[in-house]
């Protein structure tokens, strides 16, 4: 009897100790493409996330709350992302998930989180359909192509006065196809005539045929919707084939890796961006300084990933410091006008991100905001 009582006392004390502890840790799973086609984005996203986790500990989180991030590689593939999500949800019991990098991957993996009622904050998915419409647990920080491209293209047209366009897009990826849909709609809206459209697949390396076909039609501008690796090859081959006109790319171009891989061929390429790097907002300056201090290159993907963590921290704060899945879900709904590197951020009623986009041009090997 006394041993049973002794055991009960120990048990009760231990449980009491647990509930008395004020320290709670929110475990976040980050599914990023560290290998595969989207590896260039995943690498910089990871930098942004790890930096943000450190930064929010310094004041943004309520006292006693810690943020722990587990980063796993989704291999730029749906299948791998699905198994990563299952591990996060069932084994590591995360409170929320950040990611995955690609929209294509998200359409496969996010439904699992939705079914398990785990909030997901997408930081780089920009396809209009198939992300936040999966369900109410899916939130998005990254602007959709349809929020960025129209403004960017309008500014570009005001500068360059193009009247005809040749369009090239990847037709086997959710993001590049969605990007194309928006680009086509915007071009139609601006009254620009699309002289020809060509397609390619993600695994293609030779774009000479498509570029030659478009160049022969003599458009004023080449509009391309592609992921970074294809983008650098396309731009390089276009310049090699003698195309000296303007080139405008979608979100896939938004990576310093694109500039690095395309080299001199990237000069003058226009890209709409969700991150106004020239913004003087305090959060942006803090972000840029912190990235520079670590020797990381600050780019749109890092800024979006960093913002994703800020948003989650804010959600925890709004939930009164509670770190459970439902708490974070409720807290996300209350995030409003948060100062982030992307600008003043709020969620739309459909849980998509909302803030001011910008357009940039590649000059001297760097992205410069086109004012």
């Amino acid at each position, binding site marked *: 009897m006394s041993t049973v009582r002794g055991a009960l006392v120990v048990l009760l004390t231990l449980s009491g100790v647990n509930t008395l502890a004020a320290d709670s840790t929110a475990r976040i799973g980050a599914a990023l493409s560290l290998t595969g086609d989207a*590896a260039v984005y995943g690498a910089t996203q990871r930098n942004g996330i790890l930096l943000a986790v450190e930064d929010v500990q310094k004041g943004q989180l309520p006292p006693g709350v810690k943020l722990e991030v587990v980063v796993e590689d989704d291999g730029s593939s749906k299948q791998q992302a699905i198994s990563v999500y299952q591990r996060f949800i069932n084994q590591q019991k995360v409170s929320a998930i950040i990611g995955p990098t690609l929209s294509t991957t998200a359409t496969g993996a996010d439904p699992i989180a939705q079914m398990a009622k785990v909030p997901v904050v997408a930081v780089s998915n920009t396809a209009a359909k198939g992300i936040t419409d999966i369900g109410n647990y899916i939130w998005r920080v990254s602007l959709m192509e349809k929020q960025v491209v129209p403004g960017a293209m309008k500014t570009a047209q005001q500068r360059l006065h193009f009247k005809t366009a040749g369009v090239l897009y990847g037709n086997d990826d959710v993001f590049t196809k969605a990007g194309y849909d928006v680009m086509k709609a915007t071009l139609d809206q601006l009254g620009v005539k699309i002289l020809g459209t*060509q397609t390619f697949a993600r695994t293609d*390396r030779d774009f*000479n045929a498509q570029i030659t076909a478009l160049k022969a039609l003599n458009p004023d501008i080449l509009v391309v919707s592609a992921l970074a690796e294809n983008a650098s090859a396309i731009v390089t081959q276009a310049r090699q*084939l003698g195309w000296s006109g303007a080139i405008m790319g979608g979100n896939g171009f938004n990576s310093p890796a694109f500039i690095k891989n395309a080299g001199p061929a990237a000069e003058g390429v226009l890209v709409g961006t969700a991150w106004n790097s020239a913004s003087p907002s305090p959060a942006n300056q803090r972000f840029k300084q912190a990235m520079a201090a670590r020797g990381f290159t600050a780019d749109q993907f890092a800024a979006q990933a960093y913002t994703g963590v800020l948003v989650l921290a804010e959600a925890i704060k709004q939930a009164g410091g509670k770190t459970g899945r439902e708490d974070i879900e409720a807290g996300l709904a209350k995030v409003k006008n948060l100062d982030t590197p992307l600008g003043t951020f709020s969620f739309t009623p459909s849980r998509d991100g909302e803030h001011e986009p910008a357009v940039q041009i590649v000059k001297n090997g760097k992205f410069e905001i086109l004012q």
Partner: protein
Amino acid sequence: MQQVVNGLFLGSIYALFALGYTLVFGVLDILNLAHQAVFMLCAFTALALVGTLHLHTLVALPIAIVAAGLVGVLLERAAFRPLRGRSDSNISGLISSLAAATIFEALALAAWGPGQFRFPFGSVPDRRLQLGGAIVSEVQAVIIGISVAMMLALTWLLRRTRLGRHIRAVAESPLAARILGVNVDRVIAASFFISSALGGAAGVLFGLAFNDVSADMGRSVELKGLAVIILGGMGSMPGAVLAGYGLGIIEVFTVAKLGSSWRDGVSFAVLFLVLLLRPRGLLGQAATRLA
């Protein structure tokens, strides 16, 4: 006109790759599925020579090609020779080469990682020439030139040299060749050396052409190479060249006129048609079995 140039350019690479494939098939009656892995390894070797050792591209090219040839000899020794006596040596050789391909790819992944790698800027020439209505980049011209030169060299080797005669003899009948005093083992090793050198050259040129070297680059040419040699006639070198250029041009025009989703479909549809109408391929010889 530009599209024709594009097609010839792609075709050169296909033809070079297919030549190596069909050489080994002609001599040994075995499909060497590790050919695409040698294609990839040679590209990485050239990349390492240019990128890390800072050799000039034209110096790195022959070194990488010779290295590829040596890998081919090694491949023959390890994957094919032990199985040669067996009755099912065709199939077991095939599977063995498949295993070798997987191993090679894993080695490349371990050594360089899964990304796409580029030749450093400046190592690849980027001047352009005007030719009729087409713009030919210096890279394209050099690649077409090197491919044609290698094909001519191969033809000369096979027709005019002793080794060439021996290779053709072994291709005809290893037993008869052995009886006549040909060192069959050495000839087979030499064939593998040449075949892998050709495949490796195709790999380096492919890597230079699209400035893209990755551990899975062999996969994209693997099936195409197979299609090319079947189309041209298995064992026929002129067939491989003809089919290689043919396929290159067909692909380019398919993409330009119909869209890139149709490209592979059309290529394999053409293969299918040729197999239906002329099973031995365009230039292949009807199989004759003499008792």
